[in-house]
């Protein structure tokens, strides 16, 4: 329990990180450093995106599986690390 907290704090302290969200398989945000409305928005949208991305990867090669997803936008980068039951979302503003 404490290790999880520590890890999250470590990621949070990285340069440019704007927020971290942990979401479970049902789309419920478990932990978040952002406000509720943004959290809910991210959780819902990322969940759908993950399903689509994973589906695509496995469709092309059934032996393959999604390990990581990066969405780079004009303002920031959204990194998603998926797992079977949970996924971790980190929003970072990369240094230019």
């Amino acid at each position, binding site marked *: 329990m404490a290790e999880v907290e520590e*890890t999250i704090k470590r*990621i949070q302290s990285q340069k440019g990180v704007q927020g971290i969200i942990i979401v479970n398989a049902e789309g419920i*945000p*478990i932990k978040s450093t952002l406000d509720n409305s943004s959290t809910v928005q991210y959780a819902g949208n990322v969940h759908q995106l993950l399903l689509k991305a994973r589906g695509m990867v496995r469709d092309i090669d059934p032996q393959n599986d999604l390990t990581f997803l990066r969405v780079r936008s004009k303002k920031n980068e959204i990194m998603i690390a*998926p797992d079977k039951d*949970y996924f*971790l979302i980190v929003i970072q503003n990369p240094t230019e």
Partner: protein
Amino acid sequence: MEIVYVYTKKRSEFGRQCNFSDRPAELHVDILPDISLAANFTVRDPCNVTVQCAEEMSEHEVNTERFESESRGINHVEGGWPKDLNPEDMEVTIRYRKKVEKDEHYQNTIMQIAGLMEHCCKQNNATDIYQEFFEEEDDEVVEESEEQPSAKTINVFRDPNEVKRTATSLCWHPDGNHKLAVAYSSLEFQRAPNDMSFDSYIWDIENPNKPEMTLKPVSPLVCLEYNPKDSHILVGGSYNGQIAYWDTRKGSQPAEMSTIEHSHRDPVYKVIWLQSKTGTDIFSASTDGQVLWWDIRKMSEPFERLVLDPSKKGNLDNALGAVSLEFETTMPTKFMVGTEQGLVVSCNRKAKTPAEKIVCTYSGHHGPIYALQRNPFFPKNFLTVADWTARIWSEDIKESSIMWTKYHMAHLLDGCWSPVRPSVFFTVKMDGTLDVWDILFKQNDPTLSLKVCDEALCSIRVQDNGRFLGCGSQLGTTTLLEVSAGLCTLQKNEKAMVSEMFERETKREKILEARHREMRLKERSRSEQSREDEGKEADGEESTEELVARAEREFFDIMEAEKKKEKINKVYFVYTHDALCSSVIGEEAFELA
């Protein structure tokens, strides 16, 4: 020879059941062979009989009716909380969350993926992995100049009505270019079926299944234009000669229509928005020979009228029917009209008298001028599309065009310049092909020729970015095509080369014109002299009959000459093809000629 077998039965025996019995065979008729008939037949040896041992199969085609589907989506916002939990309740949700956090599986998973995530975060901070390298060199080196010009169909918009009408005119939405307004009507004289719908549609290019908006005029629209200043206003010219304008915010019915008495008497073939302070002026042209100017706020009557009478008398009976109009906002006082008779009339708006309005005419086409457009980069040169050719003219040379395409096998029905490249223009033909011409690359043939559909293509419009173009066909199918990058990016020195080419051709035509004038003068002076000398020969003009007879004679002479040439060519072929054959065959062939 009739073979008849007769039997009798007693009336009392009718209706009795049949009693079958055996009896020996009886000979009723014996037809003996008649040998003389054999003379009418010859033995055929060998007989060719084709036999095939294959399964008999029949071919059937089935196509389901068009299935209209709409895309809908649901977005879950608040995750899948268990049924008994009320997501609004703060305490319960916090408790749930804490429970999950205590779960060991959770902790293990998070440790794993957090490690992966940290790696990526650090990576981001270390270097910018999406950095653009070689940015300055991009313009020179990475140009796809080797790319073959191509165009591909992006979307096809079909007329949703049962009775298909021709897509006579298209107009792109002025901002954003996501919408295309298409005018549908049937231009075949009196052949429009009674239940033909009058509607025209505005399509969203992303959705080809259903038009975004319907415009319901009183009579089918022949042409349609968006107001370049206000993208909600469209003006349309209809088949019965009236002009109507729509405001897309107000609905499908026209906001206002011109009165029948003051409108055109023939279908309005082209309407163009003018550059004015109020942004509400339009002018329209029709085959009744008039060009009318309207203010859309007051559609009860046009505020100006011009009759296209080449004798400059304003006589409507002599007037030339107008089929296309051209107006360039950079030259607001001039405009050009393309007529049914094949003449392009250049007019000046600011002239005081109607007689002075018509400045000059350009002749050279054999049929109605379906499209007329100035080159967006070189306004002194304009493109006309008519009969079987497309011609490029220079304003200064009135006798002939400076450049022209060859005569095609099918009529050319519409054309336009590319708004981004001065040397590229597009034409569409009656056999359903779209031609893309690049005059810097090839002058004799189109750079790209695509067969878009099987029926005639009646209209074409290029979007302002030069990349997308829409073409409408006779059955109401509008096809949206995307052109390859090479055809819509300005090449280096393109403007300079095109301007050089136009100047060179203009100069050539000028020289030719001067020569012609000289020759004509000489002819005239010679004929005058000969008339003085001999006095008898009524040189004058041959009567039309004589001209026709002479033309016939010349035609048949040419035919004979061609036939002879063909025969000689055939002989040549026989001779060269079979080098082993003896000279006998050669002589035989010669005799044919």
